[in-house]
């Protein structure tokens, strides 16, 4: 089994040195860059399985690195390190296509768990046996990681795609927040964990979620779960 390659873009070099040392025995080979623009160039080589990206960087900010990376067509999973106590960072990061976030300072065990979770999810998606899913006006192509709404392709991040696919598989049934976090984010639900809710809220926006009940809806269900509801006229037909 070859080691997974992880790129860490963080300007605290003493931290990244120790992280490399900590992650190596876990089968993760770490390369670190302290600067946004050089880190971005390295990320665009496509040689990494995962990128750990700090929000606060000299030169190019973490958000800017993420935006340019996604614009250049790279789908490499990104784990954002956000400033503790700043929800805006988290929301912005996930909206821009980060797969998960971790507030910094963090417990390295938690970082390891999240890195593994993202890697596992990416690996699972590649071996998915279902080829196509269809709910109401939604069609998902698993291998191409593509979702069409009324024939129009939706621009989804990795995490959003997996969450939507999970909900589509169980269309009409409630999927608990725990299950969704485990299958879609590849890790357990933590107290004070708002990754999933942020992803759902972004998904709703992209699905054109509106309160008058038209189109496909992701509904929150009492007792902390979500359910994908196809438009009523579609299900009656």
């Amino acid at each position: 089994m070859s080691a997974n390659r992880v790129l860490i873009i963080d300007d605290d070099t003493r931290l990244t040195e120790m992280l490399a040392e900590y992650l190596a025995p876990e089968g993760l080979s770490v390369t670190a860059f302290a600067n946004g623009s050089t880190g971005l160039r390295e990320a665009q080589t496509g040689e990494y399985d995962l990128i750990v990206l700090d929000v606060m960087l000299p030169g190019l900010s973490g958000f800017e690195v993420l935006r340019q990376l996604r614009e250049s067509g790279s789908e490499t999973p990104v784990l954002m390190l956000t400033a503790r106590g700043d929800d805006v960072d988290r929301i912005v990061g996930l909206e821009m296509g980060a797969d998960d976030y971790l507030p910094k300072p963090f417990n390295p065990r938690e970082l390891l768990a999240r890195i593994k979770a993202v890697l596992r999810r990416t690996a699972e998606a590649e071996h998915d046996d279902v080829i196509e899913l269809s709910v109401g006006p939604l069609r998902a192509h698993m291998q191409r990681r593509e979702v069409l709404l009324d024939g129009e392709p939706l621009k989804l991040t990795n995490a959003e795609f997996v969450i939507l696919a999970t909900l589509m598989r169980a269309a009409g049934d409630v999927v608990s927040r725990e299950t969704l976090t485990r299958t879609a984010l590849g890790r357990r639900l933590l107290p004070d964990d708002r990754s999933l809710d942020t992803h759902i809220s972004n998904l709703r926006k992209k699905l054109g979620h509106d309160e008058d009940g038209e189109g496909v809806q992701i509904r929150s269900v009492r007792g902390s779960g979500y359910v994908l509801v196809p438009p009523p006229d579609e299900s009656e037909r």
Partner: protein
Amino acid sequence: MRLFWKIFAAVGVAMAATIATTVWVSFRLGDRAFDQLNFEGRERIIDEAAAALQTGGEAGLERWMWRNLRPAPGMALLVLDDRGNELLGRQPPRQVMRLLRTEPSKESRRPPNVRPQQITTELVGPDGREYRLVFALAPVTFGGVLTWPGTQVAVLTTALVAAILTSLLLARYLSAPIVRMQKATRALAAGNLDTRVGPSVRRRDEMGRLAKDFDAMAERLQMLVMDKEALLRDVSHEFRSPLARISVALALAQRQAGEAAASDLARIEREVERLNELVGQVMQLTRLRTQTEPRRVPVLLTSIVEEVVADARFERAEADIRYTPSVVPAVLGDPSGLKSAIENVVRNAVAHGGVDKPVEVTLTGTTKEVRIIVRDHGAGVPAEDVERIFEPFFRVDPSRDHGSDGQGIGLAITARVMELHGGTATARNCPDGGLEVELVVPVTPPERPKTA
């Protein structure tokens, strides 16, 4: 110019103007008297009176007088007989009598434009008795003055308008800056530390200086508060990198250390985690403090409270949390801020509620507001400190409370989030023991003044 001199000048000018106007009007009255006494048709009236006396005697003259009581506007006609009695029994004005009795030698002391011959005419009756016809000014009344044609009315109006205008301007000039400073003081007291009056009170008198002093005071106050907050923020910010490195170093040490060190390292790990949380809370509070308006998206507080309760049970399995839900309307606000706010109150209740005592979480709502009540059955808070629990790092009893942690700032975050949403956070001791914290979130955000 000093305010003292301004008031002095304004009042002085107003009084001088009033006096001048009064003097001028009285002179004009004198002129008018002269004009009236020389009115046209005077000769005709004298002729008529003489004719009436000739033909009808004293009785004829009286009859004629009844028809000519007002020979001209503002003018009265009197006839005195040789004993000085008025024919119709009226009392002649004192000035007239004085004029008639005046000796020629004292003529110079009379008013300059009235002479006895101008107001009196001798008439001789058929029986040889002498009568004096006297033209006197009818008493001046305010209504009478108003009916006068010409300048007097205009002068009076001008005086009146000038007086009102002067006092109005003076009053406004004095009260306007005071009102502005009062508003600014209130804004400052309400916590808007960037409040200044400077541009609105730009004067070089006592008011201007007071405004300048006010601004200097506000500036200093803001500096002190900001220094404190900036220090807190910077320290927390600077703590982050070392904390992150300590965490990784600790994880490396844990991997290498044997069983003997494991429990100590785990303890260090817990303390580092607490520091992490505190740093996060300080950063969150300082960010909330600089915000003036929260994110506004529809938020279902029902599901947020449910999550908070679930998380609290997850964190502390032994906690007995009794949750009473109800259907409440969605509010417009910041979901993660509101969640922190509720979470901190519930955590506080669980931490201070006492072992084996239940914590009651109640959600109620009307169409206007949603209410979250969290009640514990612990020792409560000394009555005088009840509102202070929302201050950052406030501890009920410093000597007793050393063991607890992380709660020093949570309720301050709650209070700030509520404030941003136009809601309230209040606490009270329950009569049968325990603390009750109530959060009220309005369904629609209140209109807020642009000055904030």
